[in-house]
C-alpha cells in the first residue's frame, strides 16, 4: 500500500537501528506521547530492535485511557434512560466505569451504537427525531474538529435532539504536567503526528524552551518512529533543545487552520480531569456559549454523577511514564483484556493492552 509499505521497509529499519546505535553515547528516557505510536512500537517489536540504553516510556496519548471514570458512568447512566441512543467510538464501549461498562448495559437492552464519526451520530439524530441522540466525544486535538463540525451542523439544522458528552483533552498541557512533576524522568519527547497535523508544531516551541527538552514530531509507521528516535537522540546528544518536524508528509508548522478555526468556534480550553492523573489546567475542551445547549452534561443534569477510580490500578503512573505495565501487581493477573480494571488494559492504544497482546512471553 502506497505511503505505508515504504515506511515498513526492512532494509530502512536496519539502517536506522544501526544509526541509532552509533548515535547513542549514554542511556536516554524518551516518551512517545501517542497511544497509536505505542501500539506500533509493540506491533512491530521495536523494543527488541533498539539498543538497551534507549528506554521508551509510553505517554498519556490514549483517549480511552484518560477519560475520567465519571464520564463512563455518565455515559452508562444516559444509555440506560428510555428514549436515548448513545453513540460512541468503538474503543469506549469496553472501558469499565465504577459499576458497569457500555457493552454490558448494551447487553441489558440499552441502545448503544458504534459509529466511525460524529457525523454518523448526527445522521442518527436526523433519522430518529423522536429520540435523544448523545454522542460520547472523547479524543485529542485529532478528533475534536470533527466533533465541533457536527455541533455546528446540528445548530444549523436545528437538531435539538442531538447533544455531546464531551471529555476531550489537549496534548501540550499534559506534557507540561509531566515535565513539572519533580519525579519526571523524561528527557525527550516524540510528539504525536496526527495531533500536530491538526494543530501544527508552534505550541511545542515554548515547552521545549521552558523545560529545556527536545521534541520531535513523528508518525506511526516503524520507519517514522525510528527516524523520530534517531533525530531525537541527535538532539539529545547535542543538547539542542528544539522542536523538529520529522513527519513533514503530514504536518505543517501552522497545522490545519480550517480545522483549528472550527475547533475554537465551538470549544474553549478548560480545566480537565485525566483518568489516573488528576486535574490539569487548560487541558480539556468546554463548549462555547452559543453551543452550550448541545452539552449533554447540562441537558441531562449529569454533574452530580461522580466516581472514584480503583485504588489498585496504577494507570496514572503508567500514563505519566513513572511505571511500566510490568510494574503493576495486577498486570496480567487480576487485570486482563477480558477483565480490565483500568482503561490502559482496554484500548488497543493502551500500554497495558499492547504489552499483553504483543509481548513475547
Amino acid at each position, binding site marked *: *500500500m502506497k505511503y505505508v509499505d515504504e515506511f515498513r521497509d*526492512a532494509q530502512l529499519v536496519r539502517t536506522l537501528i544501526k544509526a541509532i546505535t552509533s548515535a547513542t553515547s549514554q542511556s536516554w528516557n524518551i516518551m512517545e506521547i501517542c497511544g497509536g505510536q505505542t501500539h506500533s512500537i509493540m506491533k512491530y517489536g521495536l523494543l527488541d*530492535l533498539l539498543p538497551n540504553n534507549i528506554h521508551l516510556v509510553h505517554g498519556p496519548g490514549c483517549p480511552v485511557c484518560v477519560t475520567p471514570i465519571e464520564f463512563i458512568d455518565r455515559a452508562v447512566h444516559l444509555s440506560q434512560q428510555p428514549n436515548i441512543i448513545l453513540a460512541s467510538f468503538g474503543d469506549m464501549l469496553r472501558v469499565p466505569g465504577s459499576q458497569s461498562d457500555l457493552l454490558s448495559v448494551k447487553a441489558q437492552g440499552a441502545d448503544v451504537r458504534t459509529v*466511525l464519526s460524529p457525523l454518523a451520530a448526527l445522521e442518527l439524530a436526523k433519522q430518529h427525531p423522536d429520540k435523544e441522540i448523545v454522542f460520547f466525544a472523547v479524543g485529542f486535538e*485529532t478528533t475534536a474538529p470533527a466533533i465541533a463540525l457536527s455541533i455546528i451542523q446540528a445548530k444549523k439544522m436545528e437538531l435539538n435532539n442531538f447533544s455531546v458528552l464531551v471529555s476531550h483533552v489537549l496534548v501540550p498541557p499534559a506534557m507540561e504536567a509531566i515535565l513539572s512533576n519533580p519525579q519526571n524522568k523524561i528527557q525527550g519527547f516524540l510528539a504525536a503526528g*496526527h495531533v500536530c497535523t491538526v494543530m501544527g508544531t508552534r505550541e511545542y516551541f515554548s515547552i521545549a524552551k521552558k523545560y529545556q527538552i527536545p521534541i520531535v514530531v513523528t508518525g506511526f509507521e516503524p520507519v517514522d518512529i525510528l527516524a523520530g528516535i534517531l533525530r531525537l537522540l541527535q538532539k539529545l546528544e547535542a543538547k539542542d533543545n528544539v522542536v523538529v518536524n520529522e513527519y513533514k508528509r503530514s504536518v505543517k508548522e501552522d497545522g490545519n487552520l480550517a480545522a483549528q478555526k472550527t475547533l475554537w468556534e465551538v470549544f474553549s480550553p478548560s480545566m480537565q480531569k485525566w483518568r489516573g492523573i488528576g486535574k490539569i489546567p487548560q487541558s480539556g475542551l468546554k463548549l462555547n456559549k452559543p453551543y452550550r445547549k448541545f452539552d449533554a452534561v447540562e441537558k441531562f443534569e449529569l454533574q452530580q454523577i461522580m466516581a472514584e477510580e480503583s485504588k489498585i490500578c496504577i494507570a496514572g503512573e503508567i500514563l505519566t511514564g513513572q511505571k511500566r505495565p510490568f510494574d503493576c501487581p495486577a498486570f496480567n493477573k487480576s487485570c486482563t*483484556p477480558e477483565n480490565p480494571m483500568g482503561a490502559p488494559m482496554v484500548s488497543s*492504544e493502551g500500554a497495558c493492552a499492547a504489552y499483553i497482546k*504483543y509481548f513475547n512471553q
Partner: protein
Amino acid sequence: MELACPIPISDYDRILLAHGGGGKLMHQLIEKMIFNELKNEFLEQTHDGALLPIKGNKVAFTTDSFVVNPLFFPGGNIGDLAINGTVNDLVCCGAKPLYLSLSFIIEEGLLMDDFWKIIQNIKAAALKSGVKIVTGDTKVVEKGKGDGIFINTAGIGELIPDLSINPIHCQTGDVIIINGAIAEHGIAVLSKREGLTFETDIVSDSASLNTMMEAVFEVSNKIHVLRDPTRGGLASTLNEIAQASNTGITLYEKNLPISESVKGACELLGFDPLYVANEGKIVVILPEDAAEKVLETMKEFPEGKGSCIIGKVTALHPGKVHLETVIGSKRMVDMISGEQLPRIC
C-alpha cells in the same frame, strides 16, 4: 448439591456479544460451561465436527448457526454462507460432505423476496458442493425477536479413508498453507453494516472448499490439520491449533496474502486482518516434504489460486503463535479477547 457457575458472576453476569466473537471470552464460555459439563469422547475431539463410528463406517457430523448482519453483503448472502460454512467444517474433519439439515428461525416481517433470494443461494451453493438438503425446520418469531433470519445447519459426511486429520496432530517441522487472501469476508460484511458504511470493492470469500480439498486428498494423505479460519480470523484459529497440539507456530508477515483494499480498510478502521473473519479459507498443516504437491493441486482451483505457505510449526514457544514482522522483528500473536472495535483515531 448446587453447582456453582464456573465463570465468576463478578466478571460477567450476562452474555455479551464478545462471548460469541471467536476469542478468549468465547473459549472460556465453551470450555468452562459447555465442554466441562457435557463432555464425552466425541466432544473431546475438539474438532470442527465429531467423528462417529456408525456400524463400521466412519462418519463426520457437524452443526453451525448463521446470524450475519446484514443478510446480504458483497459476494453472497446468509444462504450460501450457511451451506459453505457447514460443508467446510466437514472438509476440515477430512470428510466428504453428503447431507445437510437446515433450520430457519425467521423474524416476522422479513421480505418474502429476500427469503426467496436466500433460498436461491442455498440451492446454488448446495448444487456446487454436491450436498443434499435432506431435512429442515421453519419457525417464525415475533418482530424484534430475531434479526431477519437465523439459519442453523447440521451436516453429515463420510470420512475419507487413510486420512487422520486433527488439530492435535500438528507437529514440529510442519508447514502452514492458506488458500488465498485473508479477511475479505469480515471487511465485506462490515462495509455494509449500519453506521460503518464505507466504499470498497471488497467481496466476501464465501465458498465451499470440498472440491479442491478432495483433489488434495487424492494426491496426499499426509495432512495433519485442516481448519477454516472463520470467526476470530487466522490468529484465533492458529492459537487454537498451537494450544491443542502444544506446538509453537511462527507466521511470516511478508508471506501473508492480504489484498490492498483489505489492508486499506483495516488501516482505516484500526483492525488487524489476522483477526478478521474468512468464509472460504482453509488452513492446511502438513509435513514440509508434502507441501509442494498439495500447493500445486490447490492452485489448480479458483478458490485455491492464491495458495501459499505462511508459516511453520516449531518446538519453540509451545502453545503460542509468533509473527516474524516485515521489518525483521518478532512479536506474539495472541488470541483476541472479545471483538475488534473500530478505533478512535
